[in-house]
């Protein structure tokens, strides 16, 4: 336990000090790794713990991106106002969408969330055409005010990721975490012992959506230019899913490990094997899933069969 605290504090200090010593590519790499760790951790909260497979998580990333664009470029407010509004709007939309769709089970929930994300992408693409406004920029995209400080974005992402990881740790230690796990295993039995399952699922969904909204807002401001296809891209969802599966669903560290692993491996391979790196990434994913079906963290921790004692 003490060792864990020491390791934890040391890595926090190292992460905070990182921009003082590195710049350029290294800081960019670190920023993106931290972002993906956070995105996968968001996905894990509902989909990993309660096993409601969300296949449209990117929708809140996209909503956050466009809220930030409206607040910063159209209303000329600060990034912090944009960040808060992105969180609030994403969370509220998630409640409105989640309360009906979280009644769906299994593949139906996955399909409903996927469809919602695709639909919203179309709305963002066609909004200006349909309404005759020039608000979102449609497929021409939308441009943010420029901020060139790479340390700024590094620290914002670091804070967001620290936030969602802390929430996950607290969840794991609370009755709420048990409720989500019970929902994953037998939802009717969970309801039967007093768990308000609809509420627990909606809470997890809305918390993760708020964070996804903030990630979208921050990344879009960082990139300065977005289109509906870039911020509602289904590949962002797929990455979150694969990273979480690789690391281990329903664990605190699994998505973080999976995200860091997949992102860094992809970066390394991409630089060296431009043409075949996707195939190599695919092979690595298949290998991990075959040999570590519980994910990297899950297999290291609980992969060994537990002793079966008849009582």
């Amino acid at each position, binding site marked *: 336990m003490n060792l864990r605290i020491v390791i934890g504090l040391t890595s926090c200090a190292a992460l905070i000090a990182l921009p003082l010593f590195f710049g350029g590519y290294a800081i960019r790499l670190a920023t993106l790794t931290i972002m993906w760790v956070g995105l996968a951790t968001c996905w894990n909260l509902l989909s990993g713990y309660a096993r409601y497979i969300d296949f449209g998580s990117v929708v809140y990333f996209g909503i956050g991106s466009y809220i930030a664009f409206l607040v910063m470029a159209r209303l000329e407010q600060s990034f912090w106002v944009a960040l808060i509004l992105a969180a609030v709007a994403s969370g509220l939309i998630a409640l409105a969408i989640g309360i009906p769709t979280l009644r769906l089970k299994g593949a139906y929930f996955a399909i409903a969330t996927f469809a919602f994300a695709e639909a919203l992408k179309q709305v963002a693409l066609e909004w200006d055409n349909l309404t005759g406004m020039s608000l979102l920029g449609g497929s021409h995209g939308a441009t943010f005010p420029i901020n060139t400080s790479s340390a700024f974005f590094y620290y914002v992402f670091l804070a967001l990721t620290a936030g969602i990881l802390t929430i996950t740790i607290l969840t794991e230690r609370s*009755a709420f975490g048990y409720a989500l796990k019970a929902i994953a295993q037998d939802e009717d039995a969970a*309801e039967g012992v007093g768990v308000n399952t609809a509420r627990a699922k909606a809470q997890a969904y809305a918390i993760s959506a708020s964070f996804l909204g903030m990630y979208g807002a921050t990344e879009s401001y960082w990139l300065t230019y977005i289109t509906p296809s870039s911020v509602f891209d289904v590949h962002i969802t797929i990455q979150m899913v694969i990273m979480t599966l690789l690391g281990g669903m329903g664990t605190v560290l699994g998505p973080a490990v999976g995200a860091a692993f997949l992102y860094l491996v992809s970066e390394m391979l991409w630089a060296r094997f431009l043409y075949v790196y996707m195939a190599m990434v695919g092979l690595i994913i298949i290998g991990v899933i075959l040999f570590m079906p519980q994910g990297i963290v899950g297999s290291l921790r609980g992969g060994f069969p537990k002793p079966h004692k008849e009582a």
Partner: protein
Amino acid sequence: MAPLLEVRKVTCRFGALEALADVDFQLREGEILGIIGPNGAGKTTLFNVITGSIRPSAGEVIFQGRKITGERPYRICRLGIARTSQIARPFPGLTVRENVLIAAAYGKGLSLDRARSEAGEILTSVGLGAVADLTPTAISPASRRRLELARALATGPRALLLDENMAGLTSGEIGEMLGLLNGLRERGISMVVVEHIIKAVMGISDRIIVLDHGHKIAEGRPHEVAADPQVVVAYLGRRYA
């Protein structure tokens, strides 16, 4: 005194099948009510209606003077009705203790720390103290039945519905379970006991009702019911003929 739980003219149809037809009964404070009836009589369906997991086609359920039909199952649990399932349904990925803890935390509204100690006490009281930190898959079927009971008890029920909680137990284990249930009655928990093991249910119940094809065909003290010719034909007949 008003009954603790009252089922009024409950009818439950699945398509053309009438699983329950105009069923009425009352559970009084401190009472153990036995329900017997052949397979498919509607016993489990009746429990599903009471706990809110199935909405009846007609009729209502009153608990402590208040209509609970249409309420969500978690609400009904928190109001004070708990059940065990015919097929034990523990959360397989949680330990035995965590299975009970979650019921105490949510069903009874305890803080996590208090729920943990409550779970420990309940597990000891049903004789599962030694296996509290194993997973439900690692304990014997008889222990899983007790876990089902422990989890229901942890929600702090006033009325406990037991669905064939003694099926598959040895006669020694049945004796122990009956002892546990008598202890619960002394603590003021009223029970509805669905059971195929006639001797056990006759011995422990204050009153018995008999269901057959969704109809209540008899009600009374155990010896009266056992002597009822309709019951003998419908149910006991096959064994007592």
